[in-house]
């Protein structure tokens, strides 16, 4: 798997079976997968659905950089992340991260580091519709302050 395909945005449901098959490697003894699902609550408020929007050019470059870096750092056999954009309903798959490694420590560490970095740095924004009729963009407070960390 080349790093050009390490991160993708998808505007249709993610084909996880194909992604999973791409992780296979005869030297891999461990596979870790993370899935982010649209849940029905956020900070105590009921959520009815949401929309993801991305700055596609930068998101894909930054996502590929993150996955490629962590794949190298953890000596993974394969790593891939796909993030949905557009409208999603409760229970829908929003983001999929899958990695394979020789041993489980590297697989867990890398999978978690990838989703953490994606959430921190990739320009994707969530717009939530709440049960009370309100709606809005989520802009978490953990801003980095400067143009680039």
């Amino acid at each position: 798997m080349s790093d050009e395909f390490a991160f993708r945005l998808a505007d249709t449901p993610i084909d996880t079976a194909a992604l999973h098959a791409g992780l296979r490697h005869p030297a891999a003894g461990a596979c870790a997968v993370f899935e982010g699902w649209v849940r029905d609550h956020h900070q105590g408020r009921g959520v009815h659905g949401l929309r993801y929007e991305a700055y596609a050019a930068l998101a894909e470059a930054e996502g590929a950089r993150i996955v490629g870096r962590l794949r190298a750092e953890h000596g993974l056999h394969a790593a891939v992340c796909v993030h949905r954009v557009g409208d999603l309903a409760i229970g829908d798959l929003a983001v999929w991260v899958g990695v394979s490694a020789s041993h489980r420590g590297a697989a867990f560490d890398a999978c978690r580091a990838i989703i953490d970095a994606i959430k921190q740095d990739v320009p994707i924004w969530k717009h939530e519709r709440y049960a009370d009729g309100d709606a809005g963009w989520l802009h978490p407070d953990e801003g980095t302050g400067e143009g680039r960390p």
Partner: protein
Amino acid sequence: MTRVQVLYFASLRDAAGIAQEAVDTDAENLAALYEDLRARHGFVLPRERLRVAVDGAFATWGDPPRAETEIAFIPPVSGG
């Protein structure tokens, strides 16, 4: 004056009412450009909570606007 294309996302796009605009600016750097546009569009987010990107790559606020580049102000992200 330098002409640049500015992209708006998420709450910045909602506040501006547009996703993109051509801007003629004499701001000395990207920070000053954001302050000008913030005043014009009434953006709530202070610059300290944003990042800035030029032509699809993260940039620094001290960079001057360059002609015909695409500038994006990046609100705090919430993917995942």
